[in-house]
């Protein structure tokens, strides 16, 4: 049985009429809501599963448990050990990947139409009935610890971890979800089993699929895939308090190029000003070659290969961050330019021409993201997690176009706070 709650046809007005994607809202017989785009021209399906929570669900003292647990899902299930499982996936030419993030865990899959049932049965065994045998725990733990040690010597990772630590105190956001050598070293099998029960529950699952499958088939597939998972998982932690003030923190590290992470508190995804902030960020430093920061720091002065800024609206707190890297004898110059551009944008906002350019860029680039079954499935599941309506993709460009110069100027004053801007610099800068 299938319930169609809604179907939205996304139509990109800026482009020819073929640019339409019909998103179906399918509620499975067991009541799980999934979004589907049917695309029958290529015989495979891309499937995305997300469970809200992620690394923030680590129990106190068990930092890294969720991440290690996710690394173990492909390491054996039922009668199969890690190699048996990989062999079975190879025989089906199915790809599964399992990842942990701060706010979510993700399971991505693609499988062929010709052996879809077998692929899904195999995926289910890994998700619902992982073995977590000690020998696998020990092996994957050592891989994770090897990664932690590498991060500890990587200037980019040192910079972002230092910033997070200063910004979020004792909240899980303050530390890496990989955990530390000590915390991961102390994890037991019970901790892993608990992390699995905490994270993979039906009260927090989001599903999307794109490809050669009908709504009926998908409903049955998703129910079969999730059967056996607990109804509820661990409670979500409290909101994170941002506690960093303006200034600079220097981490001495012997390397020729200093790496800086800079920023302050950001803006929530559901804030009414989010769209204006998003447009503002494109103008200031959002990754295109002609952002203000790229123009001032790279194009005019040659101080860096790249400077970028990002709005990071996490579930339990938000950041507005940027990154830059310059030789030790030039980083202080780069920092000065960024500080002054940050203040200039806060005070004056962008020009009408900059706003218009950012809008054409954003509205034109949006449909280009919908390029392939995997990317579309990813976008759909992200929309669901952000609690966006099913017609969001169709109205998103209108929302961008509705942002006025006054909006952006007002929001620039509101969210850019030069006095709070904090730089964490890793390297041996010469002042």
């Amino acid at each position, binding site marked *: 049985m299938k319930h169609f709650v809604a179907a939205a046809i996304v139509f990109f007005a*800026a*482009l*020819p009429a*073929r*640019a339409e994607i019909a998103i179906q809202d399918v509620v499975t017989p067991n009541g799980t809501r999934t979004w589907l785009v049917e695309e029958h*021209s*290529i*015989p*495979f399906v891309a499937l995305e599963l997300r469970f809200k929570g992620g690394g923030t669900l680590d129990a106190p003292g068990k930092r890294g448990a969720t991440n290690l647990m996710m690394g173990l899902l492909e390491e054996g299930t039922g009668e199969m050990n*890690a*190699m048996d499982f*990989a*062999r079975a996936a*190879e025989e089906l*030419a199915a790809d599964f990947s399992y990842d942990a993030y701060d706010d979510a865990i993700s399971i991505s899959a693609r499988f*062929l139409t*010709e052996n879809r049932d077998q692929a899904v049965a195999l995926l289910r065994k890994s998700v619902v009935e992982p073995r977590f045998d000690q020998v696998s725990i020990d*092996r994957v733990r*050592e*891989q994770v610890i*090897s990664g932690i*040690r*590498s*991060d500890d*010597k*990587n*200037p980019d990772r040192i910079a972002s971890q230092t910033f997070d630590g200063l910004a979020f105190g004792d909240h899980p956001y303050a530390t890496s979800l990989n955990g530390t050598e000590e915390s991961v070293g102390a994890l037991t099998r019970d901790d892993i089993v608990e992390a699995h029960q905490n994270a993979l529950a039906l009260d927090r699952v989001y599903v999307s699929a794109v490809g050669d499958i009908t709504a009926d088939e998908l409903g049955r597939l998703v129910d079969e895939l999730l059967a056996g998972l607990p109804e509820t998982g661990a409670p979500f932690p409290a909101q994170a308090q941002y506690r960093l003030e303006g200034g600079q923190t220097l981490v001495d590290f*012997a*390397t*020729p*190029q200093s*790496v800086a992470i800079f920023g302050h508190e950001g803006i929530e995804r559901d804030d009414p000003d989010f769209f204006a902030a998003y447009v503002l960020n494109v103008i200031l430093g959002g990754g*295109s*070659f*002609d952002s203000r920061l790229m*123009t001032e720091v*790279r*194009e*005019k*002065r*040659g*101080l*860096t*290969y*790249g400077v970028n800024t990002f709005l990071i609206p996490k579930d339990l707190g938000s950041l507005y961050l940027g990154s830059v*890297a*310059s*030789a030790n004898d030039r980083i202080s110059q780069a920092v000065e330019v960024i500080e002054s551009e940050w203040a200039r944008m806060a005070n004056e906002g962008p020009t009408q021409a900059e706003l218009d*350019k950012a809008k*054409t*860029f954003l509205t*034109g*680039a*949006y*449909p*280009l993201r*919908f*390029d*392939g*079954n995997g990317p579309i499935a990813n976008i759909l599941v992200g929309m669901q997690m952000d609690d966006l309506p099913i017609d969001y993709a169709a109205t998103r460009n209108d929302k961008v176009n509705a942002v006025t110069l006054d909006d952006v100027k007002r929001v620039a004053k509101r969210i850019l706070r030069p006095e709070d801007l904090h730089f964490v610099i890793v390297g041996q800068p010469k002042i």
Partner: protein
Amino acid sequence: MRRMMMLAGLFALSALPIRAQEMVTDFVLGNGMQVVVVEDHRAPVVMHMVWYKAGSADEQPGVSGVAHFLEHLLFKATDTLESGEFSEVVSANGGRDNAFTSYDYTAYYQRVASDRLELMMKMESDRMVNIRLTEDDILTERDVIIEERNQRTENSAGALFREQRSAAQYLNHRYGVPIIGWRHEMEQLDLQDALSYYEQYYAPNNAILVVAGDVYPDEVKALAEQYYGVIPANPDLPERLRPQEPPHTSARRMEFRDPRVAQEYVTQSFLAPERDSGDQKEAAALTLLAQVLGSGPNSVLARKLQFGSKQAVYVSSFYNGVSLDDTTFDLIIVPANGVSLREAEDAMGAAIEQFLQDGVDPEHLKRIKMQLRAEQIYARDAADSVGNRYGRALTSGLNIQDVQEWPEILQAVTEAEIIEAAKRVFNPDRSVTGWLLRPTSNQEVTQ
């Protein structure tokens, strides 16, 4: 002469096709510029790319990094565009653009709505021959590429190690020189260096146009003739003959120490043949050897060293046959806690020795071939990457037919051929063994 190829699936072993079912058309313009069109009409998007058959290995001695430096400079002014305007126009049309340089090619691309293709061709054909550089451009952009080198290489012990290993691998070929350039030579690059390279290599008869996405060959042809077809060929384009390697006759060993090393490891590389036009069998065997030996939990090395003896945290093998000249077959082992680099290297050597005696597990090879066939289906979801595959191949000495025959050649490789290829490539006299290490405590004091 234009050929239309719509390839029907050939069936074997299972219902999956061996050959790609891509819609690929190719033709050559009057001035010698080759054009490849990959059709995918599912979304109104197009990838427009121009690939030059010129990379860092085509540089003259003493100006390492100039190919990549020029790639940056192509975003500066032309007769009709101001500095930076190229990317601004692409952005203003909702597109993304960038470029990349490798040993054997330099490529420029824009991803845009398909109705903007003409504008992209107009601008890309303009900068093929019309850049106008100033001294100021040179000085600022040289600082940018030096910061790029800082970011990619100087700040990473692993990247510095890789650079040294390539230098040790190639005695005479430019593959031993980093694409981004040696720092001391980059610091001296000037306007004339950039222009010499530009004038020598940037010409339609040295370029390949790849257009992938929602386009039809006829419209691409008409536009290509209008914008690229009018640029005269460079009659002085040199033949692509680069200094080749002499026979490798002695094993080379190196140690690289850096206090920023978190995880020590061992690498081994062996000079290996690349895919040659009309002669890809050896490369196909090496491609499958890399899969059998070191890709995934069921590969020979992972089974023996990660799951079996538990001496490795990670072990892998790599081979990429797309290269104009001789390439390498690479091995890496990251030892488990308490296992020395010497023990890890010996264990890897013993595991390969054993593999050469045991042979290839036919079931394993069958699974790998099944995955390669499935890859033909998954690839149809990504026209861009199909376009990329053609661009890399055609700038690396292969032709369209070679690219299209490749999947069948892979499927035809036998267990015995893999072992024979392994015995040829794992010649100790042609090896470079590298250890990446932390400094001993004594050395650390002097850092």
